[in-house]
């Protein structure tokens, strides 16, 4: 007993509370998985906006790491978001930046300090799928260079823990329901067999 309540009741409350918080995120990941698996189907509000390009003068900072230099330049041109990678070609620096709802490319001539900022609004589907993919495994050295990417990573890590807690507590809550044990075992068994068979075929 915990606080005078049997484990079943406080685990049920924990399962409920964790599930309530996680449910919007689970829906987001479910919807975006469908969008990513079926890219030929046009996502809702898919029409992207027209790109706009402006030229600005920037002061090119020196003595900084590449990513810090890029972020200083972005601050000067008023661009926020996650730097995807840095493309260097002689004196030309290309900085693609992404955030939910917008893709921006900043091209800088480091010799002259002239920067071109091209912004492209994205559709609702891309706004969603950006969050599914972020931060991701690529260019690990600079990934998380935007504060909101770091916060999102922390939040998604917490979501994974919640999912594990929700599922573990769910299995316990099911196990104490005698009436559902047989059917539950059959479905758990079928799910296990389907999972193992698919993984084996894909990985062997």
């Amino acid at each position: 007993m915990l606080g005078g309540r049997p484990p079943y009741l406080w685990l049920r409350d924990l399962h409920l509370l964790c599930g309530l918080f996680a449910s919007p995120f689970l829906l987001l990941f479910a919807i975006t998985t469908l969008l990513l698996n079926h890219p030929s189907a046009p996502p809702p509000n898919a029409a992207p906006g027209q790109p706009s390009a402006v030229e600005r003068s920037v002061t090119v900072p020196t003595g900084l790491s590449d990513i810090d230099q890029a972020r200083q330049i972005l601050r000067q041109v008023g661009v926020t978001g996650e730097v995807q990678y840095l493309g260097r070609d002689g004196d030309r620096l290309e900085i693609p930046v992404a955030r939910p709802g917008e893709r921006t490319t900043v091209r800088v001539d480091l010799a002259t300090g002239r920067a071109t900022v091209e912004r492209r609004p994205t559709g609702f589907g891309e706004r969603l799928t950006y969050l599914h993919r972020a931060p991701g495994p690529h260019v690990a050295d600079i990934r998380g260079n935007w504060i909101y990417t770091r916060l999102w990573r922390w939040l998604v890590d917490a979501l994974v823990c919640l999912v594990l807690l929700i599922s573990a507590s769910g299995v316990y809550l099911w196990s104490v329901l005698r009436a559902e044990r047989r059917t539950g075992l059959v479905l758990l068994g079928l799910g296990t067999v389907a999972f193992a068979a698919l993984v084996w075929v894909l990985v062997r």
Partner: protein
Amino acid sequence: MPPPWLRSVEVWNQRVHIWVGLACLWFLWLFALSGLLLNHPRWTLLPAWEQRRVETRTLPVQQVEPQGDLQTARALMGQLGLTGEVGSVSADPAADRFAFGVSRPGTFAEVSVDWARRQAEVKVTRIGAWGALVGLHTANGGGGGRHLRDWLPTTLWVVAMDGLCVGLFVLVASSLLMWLQAGRLRRLEWAVLGAGVLCCAFFLWGT
């Protein structure tokens, strides 16, 4: 006392929630864990890449009937004993060469065919169990400039992924229905749900 039909809805809703949750359990754990590892590549993915095993062989191949690039790649895979999803394909008729990539979770093969010599150089890279686990997360047949699935296991895996998504919709809907039908609806529960919704909305529109 609720009417019988409502009580029946409550019972079946709870059953569906339990059944779908149990059926999807392993898939849910795999995608949760692999997603965590994708967001922290230094934990396992980068070390697995550094410890990858690479094997290069030169094998004889027979001329394949003229057909599309994908069909040519598939025919060569049969000759070379390779299975997986065809990725990038490049044909250079002037140099009498044909190259393509094949992938499956945890394994990548790069094939370069010299038609004049009737031989293929096959470079197979294996990145171990962690690579396979993470590869399962993204194994939907996309990439290589094409959005086609050309390998049956990939199609089946995508069906499983789609099934998990539908399962998540059902789990969320049935859980909300159970919560509303329970009738307690405490302030803490509303606050927690609201916090989740606001967090999601903030990252979608507020950053």
